């Protein structure tokens, strides 16, 4: 009987899973684009801008995600900005992830020898071209391991959006719990399993990508 209820509730869990994946996808895209801009800005923009970016990173990394989500979802309406829970969640996750990702990209940029940009200039490239054709492609390759890590963190962090009422996987689990308290342990274990499979397969896929796009021989070069 309990099993029947569980099977009946499976579709709603998969709905929640879909929302969780959407949250992850949108916010990792936002975080990646913004993170690259921030890192590039911190390395190549003027001093005041670089300082502002540093401040942004420190602040966003110093605030718990839940508090940030509360600020966006409950706080912003006070100044006339009303966002639905999903949008607020994507913005909160994305802005915070950008601050962490910026660190990853900056580390990668810093590990690229200065001679690379000198060589680009010597060919007549301007700063923008040098960044785009020489720095960017190397930075992205070097950032894959850090980005993978960030991706799985973000995937797990989407569960916190439960706190502002996004109907993602956790919330669907909670609905089932309310309907049928007897199932609670099984349902949350099932959700845990879903997350585990997602994280596990994301790790495996990204490790494959990492290998594929590794700069040939770069490892040996880097160790020298």
């Amino acid at each position, binding site marked *: 009987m309990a099993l029947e209820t569980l099977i009946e509730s499976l579709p709603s869990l998969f709905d929640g899973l879909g929302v969780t994946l959407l949250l992850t996808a949108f916010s990792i895209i936002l975080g990646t684009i913004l993170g690259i801009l921030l890192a590039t800005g911190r390395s190549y923009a003027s001093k005041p801008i670089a300082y502002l970016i540093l401040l942004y990173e420190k602040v966003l990394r110093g605030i*718990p*995600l839940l508090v940030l989500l509360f600020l966006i979802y409950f*706080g912003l309406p006070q100044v006339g900005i009303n966002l639905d829970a999903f949008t607020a969640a994507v913005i909160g996750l994305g802005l915070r992830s950008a601050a962490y990702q910026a660190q990853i990209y900056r580390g990668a940029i810093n590990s690229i020898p200065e001679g690379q940009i000198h060589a680009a200039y010597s060919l007549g490239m301007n700063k923008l071209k040098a960044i785009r054709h020489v720095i960017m492609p190397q930075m992205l390759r070097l950032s894959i391991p850090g980005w993978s890590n960030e991706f799985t963190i973000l995937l797990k962090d989407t569960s916190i959006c439960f706190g502002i009422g996004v109907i993602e996987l956790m919330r669907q689990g909670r609905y089932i719990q309310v309907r049928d*308290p*007897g199932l*609670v342990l099984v349902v949350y274990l099932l959700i845990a399993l879903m997350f*585990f499979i997602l994280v596990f397969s994301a790790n495996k896929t990204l490790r494959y990508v990492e290998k594929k796009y590794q700069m040939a021989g770069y490892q040996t070069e880097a160790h020298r």
Partner: protein
Amino acid sequence: MAADFGQFFLNSLPNLLSGLGYTLLLTFISIAVGFCLGIVLALGRVYGTKVVNGFCVGYIELIRGTPLLVQLFIIYFGLPTIGIIFTPLQAALIGLALNSGAYQAEYLRGSIQSVESGQMNAARSLGMNKLQSIRHVILPQALRISIPAWSNEFIYLLQYSSIAYIIQVTELTAEGKFIAAHTFRYLEVFAMIAVIYLILTIVSTEIIDRIAKRLSIPGIGAATRISLRDM
């Protein structure tokens, strides 16, 4: 306006302080318990038999592969169905500590392995047994190396302890939500809470940085300082 906010802040202070107390309690206890658990798991991974190693890997991967909130829900909502009942605070402490233990185990393992081979041989050739070598040679170095990661973990716990709000622990974020719900001043309240977390983050980074400097050994401490500065 400013005076009004000042008054508002003063009125909120007792709640905020009480919440802050719980946040710090959660953070400190779970980092300490997590640390003990982490060392055991890390040693199990490096020195344990195949079975012990397998068990440790399984635990670490399961914890790191699932969200903290799910773990809290299993402990707080799930376990009572098989007769294990915790208060919200207990559940949060257990969840955070178990969670942190897995993460701490991973970077402790990394540092142990980075000093392992040569140092272990040297210690054993002095006539120390394995346990003595680990205690007197490997761990003192490994722990220093892991201070930057440990500092990060502390910040993570400080921030992720806010999730305990969802299982009704009256920590800082919960108190904020309480005040906001009664005054409808969400923006100010959460900005205030954010600033408090920010200050906590900066202050604790600075303190751990100082500790790292004091404990640093030439050649081991240097890397520690650089990565801490980058926080």
